[in-house]
C-alpha cells in the first residue's frame, strides 16, 4: 500500500517539477522514486495486507507483478532520458502520466473487488489516451489518441454493464462472494449472470488486445509516440493479464463451461489474428503490435490451463516478453533517427554493417520473441506448452505451436533485413545509456533463459 501511495505522490512531484523547468532532473527523480517504490513493494512481501474493507489485497501475486512492472517502467524511463532530449514539449506531464498509469496498474494487480478493478482500468487508461496523443503536431498521434479513446470508452461501457449485471444478480462486487454465488448454480448459470460475466471478461480482453477486440492496437501502437508504445506493449499488457488472471483465480474458477469455451475461442482467434496479421507487415511498430497480440494468445493459453504454476508461468512470460520488447523499441528509434524518420522494416538494412553489436543484440531479442532456445522466450513458450499439454488441452496446444512456427517467419524476416547489406542514410548514434540498456536487456534475456526458470510467487 505504501508503494501505491508513494507512487501517486511521485507522480505529483514530477508534474510540479515540470513547472520549475527542470527538465534534466525529471527522469532521475522519477527513476529514484520508482526505486523507492520497488523497495516499499518488497517490504510488503509475504504480508498479504488488506485495505478498504478487503477491497484491495496485496498478496505475493500482486507484489511480484508490481515489481516486474516497476522494473520495466524504470527501463522505459531510462530510455526516456534520450528520447525526450530529442523531442521536448511537456516532458514532465508525460512522465507523470506514465507514473499515474502505473498506479492504475498496481490497482489492477491487487484488487479483490470489481469496483477497484474498474477504477484501476480507468486510472490506467485515461493517462494512456492522453499519452497516445503526446505528439501534438502529429496527425497519426492524434488519430491514435482519438481511436484509443473511442474504442476504449466503448469497452469500458461494456465492462461496466457487465459489472452491473453481475451485481444485479448477486448483489456483491466482492470476488470471493461472487465465486460462492456462481458455485451454487453448479455450472448452469442464469443468462443474466452469464452475460454479465462475459461482458466483464470482454472488458479485460480489450485491454490485453485479445481478438476480436484487438482492432485498436495496431493503429494505436503505430500512431503513439514510441516510448508510449513501449509502455503499452509491456506494462499495460502485464497489468491487463495480471487483472485477467486474478479475475479468473479469485472469482470465476472453475469457469462455467460456456464461458470457458468462449475464452478458448478467443485464445484461438487471438493466436490466429496476431500471427497472420504480422506476417505481411512492413512497418516495424505495427509488426510489434501484431506480435503483441500473438503473445497475448500464448499468455491466454497459460492462463486458461488452470494449474498451481500458471501464475508463475504468466509472470515469467510477461516479464521476459517486456524485457525483449523495450530494447527493440530503443533500437527502432535509433534506426528511425538514422533513416530520416522512416519506420519501415527495410530501414533496418545495413544495421549489421553499421553497428554489428546492435544487430547481434537485436537478433537475440527477436529470437527470444520467436521462442528460439536458449533465449528466455523459448523457456517461456516451452513452459506454456508444457502447462497446457499437461492440462489436457492438446488440440489448442498443437494449434499454438503451429502459430509459433508462423511467428518465426516474421521475426526472422526482420533479422534477415538486419543482416542484409545496404548503406544506412545516416550513421547510427547511440548514447552510452541506450547502449548499456540494449546490452543489459539482451544479456538478461539470454541468462534468464538459461538459469532462471522458476520465479517465486
Amino acid at each position: 500500500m505504501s508503494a501505491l501511495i508513494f507512487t501517486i505522490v511521485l507522480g505529483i512531484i514530477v508534474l510540479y517539477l515540470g513547472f520549475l523547468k527542470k527538465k534534466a532532473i525529471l527522469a532521475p527523480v522519477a527513476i529514484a522514486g520508482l526505486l523507492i517504490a520497488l523497495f516499499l513493494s518488497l517490504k510488503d512481501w509475504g504480508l498479504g495486507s488488506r485495505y478498504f474493507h478487503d477491497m484491495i489485497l496485496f498478496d505475493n501475486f500482486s507484489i511480484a507483478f508490481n515489481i516486474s512492472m516497476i522494473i520495466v517502467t524504470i527501463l522505459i524511463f531510462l530510455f526516456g532520458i534520450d528520447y525526450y532530449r530529442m523531442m521536448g514539449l511537456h516532458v514532465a506531464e508525460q512522465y507523470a502520466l506514465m507514473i499515474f498509469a502505473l498506479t492504475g496498474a498496481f490497482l489492477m494487480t491487487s484488487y479483490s473487488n470489481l469496483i477497484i478493478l474498474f477504477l484501476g482500468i480507468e486510472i490506467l487508461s485515461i493517462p494512456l489516451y492522453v499519452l497516445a496523443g503526446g505528439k501534438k503536431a502529429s496527425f497519426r498521434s492524434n488519430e491514435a489518441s482519438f481511436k484509443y479513446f473511442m474504442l476504449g470508452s466503448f469497452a469500458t461501457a461494456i465492462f461496466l454493464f457487465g459489472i452491473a449485471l453481475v451485481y444485479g444478480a448477486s448483489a456483491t462486487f466482492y470476488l470471493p462472494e461472487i465465486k460462492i454465488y456462481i458455485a451454487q448454480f453448479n455450472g448452469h448459470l442464469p443468462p443474466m449472470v452469464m452475460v454479465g460475466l462475459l461482458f466483464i471478461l470482454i472488458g479485460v480482453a480489450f485491454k490485453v488486445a485479445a481478438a476480436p477486440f484487438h482492432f485498436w492496437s495496431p493503429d494505436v501502437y503505430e500512431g503513439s509516440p514510441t516510448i508510449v508504445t513501449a509502455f503499452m506493449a509491456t506494462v499495460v499488457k502485464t497489468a491487463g493479464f495480471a487483472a485477467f488472471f486474478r479475475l479468473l483465480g479469485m472469482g470465476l474458477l472453475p469457469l462455467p463451461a460456456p464461458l470457458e469455451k468462449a475464452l478458448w475461442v478467443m485464445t484461438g482467434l487471438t493466436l490466429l489474428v496476431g500471427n497472420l496479421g504480422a506476417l505481411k507487415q512492413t512497418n516495424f511498430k505495427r509488426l510489434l503490435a501484431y506480435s503483441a497480440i500473438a503473445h497475448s494468445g500464448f499468455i491466454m493459453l497459460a492462463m486458461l490451463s488452470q494449474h498451481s504454476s500458471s501464475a508463475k508461468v504468466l509472470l515469467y512470460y510477461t516479464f521476459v516478453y517486456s524485457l525483449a520488447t523495450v530494447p527493440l523499441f530503443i533500437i527502432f528509434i535509433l534506426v528511425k533517427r538514422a533513416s530520416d524518420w522512416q519506420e519501415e522494416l527495410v530501414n533496418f538494412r545495413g544495421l549489421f554493417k553499421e553497428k554489428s553489436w546492435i544487430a547481434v543484440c537485436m537478433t537475440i531479442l527477436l529470437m527470444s520473441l520467436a521462442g528460439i532456445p536458449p533465449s528466455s522466450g523459448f523457456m517461456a513458450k516451452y513452459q506454456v506448452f508444457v502447462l497446457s499439454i499437461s492440462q489436457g488441452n492438446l488440440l489448442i496446444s498443437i494449434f499454438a505451436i503451429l502459430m509459433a512456427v508462423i511467428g518465426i517467419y516474421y521475426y526472422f524476416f526482420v533479422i534477415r533485413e538486419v543482416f542484409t547489406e545496404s548503406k544506412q542514410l545516416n550513421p547510427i548514434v547511440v548514447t552510452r545509456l541506450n547502449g548499456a540498456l540494449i546490452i543489459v536487456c539482451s544479456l538478461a534475456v539470454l541468462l534468464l533463459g538459461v538459469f532462471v526458470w522458476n520465479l517465486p510467487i
Partner: protein
Amino acid sequence: MVEPIPNINLALLVPALPLLGFLITGLGYKRFKNNQAGIIASTSIGLSFLVSVFLFFVLRNSGQDAATVTLFNWIAVGNMNIPFAFLIDHLSLTMMLIITGVGSLIHIYSIGYMHGDNRINSFFAQMNLFTFSMLLLVMGANYLVLFIGWEGVGLCSYLLIGFWFKNPSFNYAARKAFIINRIGDLGFILGIILLFFSFNSVSFSEVFAQASTMQIGTPVITAITLLLLVGAVGKSAQIPLFTWLPDAMAGPTPVSALIHAATMVTAGIYMIARSSILYNLAPITLNVIIVIGLSTAILAAIIGLKQNDIKKVLAYSTVSQLGYMFLALGLGAYSTAVFHVTTHAFFKALLFLGAGSIIHAMGGEQDIRKMGGLRKKMPVTYWTFLAGTLAISGIPPFSGFFSKDMILVKAFEHNIIIYILALAGALLTCFYMFRLLYLVFFREQRLAGAHPHESPKVMTIPLIILGILSVFGGFLNIPSLFGGDLSFSNFLQKNVFSKVSEEISHSTEIGLIILSLSLLSLIIWLAYRTFIRKAVVPAADGVSMTPIARLVTNKFYIDEIYTTVFEKPFGSFSNFLFKKVETNILNPIVDGVGEATSVLGMLTRRLQRGNMSFYFFAMVAGILLFIIFILTI
C-alpha cells in the same frame, strides 16, 4: 558395496587430457608454428599414457577387478537412467594402454612425418579428438557411452582419411568409409535399443548380471548379439563390409597406423569381448562369427598376394588379421582375441610406420615395384620392418607367433577343417609379407632419380620402440608349454568370460607348432626364390594375366559388385525420389502451405484498414456472437 579405490578417479584424466589437447590445438590452429601443435598433442597423449599406467597399478594393488567412475548422471527420463560413467577393469585398461601407448608413439612419429604440411595443426587436433573418442569407446561403462566413442572415432576416421581433401578420390574414400560404417552403426544402435528393451538398462554390469541367469540360445540374445555383430563387422572391416579399409589408406600413413591398424578397427573385437557373456549365450552368433572371420582372413590374404601398393598390402593384411581375431572370438577364446589385438597393435603399427618411413624417403612413392634396395640406405627402417614382418608371419619368438599360434590351436581343438583353413591363411600372410619385404628392401633400386635416406630420429625412435614391442610383446602371454603361465589371459579372465579353456595338451601343441613352422619356412624360401633369386617383379598394370590372377588383382571385383548391386539401384531410387516425388509432389505441397499462409496474412491485414466504424462493427459483432455462443451452447 565395494570399497572405493583411492585415486581411481584419476581415470577421468585419461580421456580428459586428449580432449584438452584437442581443444588447445583445435582452437588455436591458426596460431601454432612448426611443431608446437605436434608437441602439445603428443604430450597430452603421453601424459594420458602415464596416468593409464598408474591406474593399472592402482587397480592391481586394490585387489578388486573393476571400478566404476561416474562423471555425472547423463540421461534420466522415465525409467531410463543412464549415467555418464567409465568402467575401469582389466579389459579396458589393456585397451587404454594400447591406445595411449601406441598412440603417443604414433603422435611423436607424426611430428616428423607431417612436418611441412600446411594443415599440420588441424591434423594433430583431429588425432587428439580421435584418441579421446577411442578412449570413451573402451572406457564407457555402458553401451551408450561406448556408442558415443564409436561414432566419434567414425567421424575422426572420416576426417583423417579425407585429410588431403583436395584430392577427389581421397574424399571419395573418406565418404566410402563413413557410409559403410553407417551400415554397421545402424545394426549396432538397433542392437543397443533391443538390449535396452530386453534388460531395461544399457549398463554393462546390469545387463551382464541379468544375462548370466538366462538360458543358452535365448532368441532375443541371439538377435541382440547378431545386431551388435553387424556394428562390429562394419567397424572392424569384415566380410561383407570390409571394402572401405583398403581405400582408407588415402589418409596420411600415421592415421593408417593409429586408426586403421592399431586401434579403431579393433573396436568391434573389443565390443564383442566386452559382451562375452551375451555371446556365450548365443552359439548361432558365434558360428556366424567363425564363418565371417575365417573367410575374411583368407579372402583378404589372397587379395594381399597381388597388391602392389605398399599400404594396400598392409591394409589387406590388417583385414586378414582382424579376421583371425574374429575367428578367435567365434571360438569363444575372447582373451586370445584381445591378445592378438595387442600384438597386432604393436607389429601392424610398426609396419605402417615403417611403410610411412619408406614413402617419406621415396618422396611419396607407394608402388613396391618401383622400390628395392632400401636395406642399405634405411637400416633402421629395414631392421624394424623385418621384426614386424617376422612377427606378423608368426615366427617364434616374435609376438605374433604367440597370439596367432594360440588362435590356431583353438581352431584345431574346435574343428580340424577350420584349423587347416586358418593355417593356410597364415601361410599366405607369410608369403605376401616376405614378398613385400624382398621387393622393397632387397636387390637394386628400381626407381631412377630417387635418393632414399633414413628418416629423422623423431620417426625412427618410435619405430625402434615398436620394434622392441613386436619382438618381445608375445612374452606377455607365454603358454605353459614354454614354462609361462598365460599371464595376459589370466589377467583378462576376471572381466572377459572365455568359453574355452586357454590350455591344451602339450604334445598336440608341439606337433602343431612344428607343422606350422616347417610350412612357414617353406613359404619364406619360396618367396626368397621368387623375388630374390629369380628377381621377379610383379607385372605392370594392364599386362595380360591369367583369369585367376586378374580376379585376384581386381580384388574379386567386390567393389564393382557392390556398385552394381547396391550403389546404382540405390542411386537411381534416390534420383527418383528427388526428381519425381520431391519436385512434383512434396515441393508443391510445402510451397502451397507457405503461399496459403501468406494469403491469409494479407487478408488479415486487410481487415485493419483504419476505419473506426468498421472496428466498432467488428467488436459489436464479436460481442453478439459470443453472447449467442454462451447462451446456446
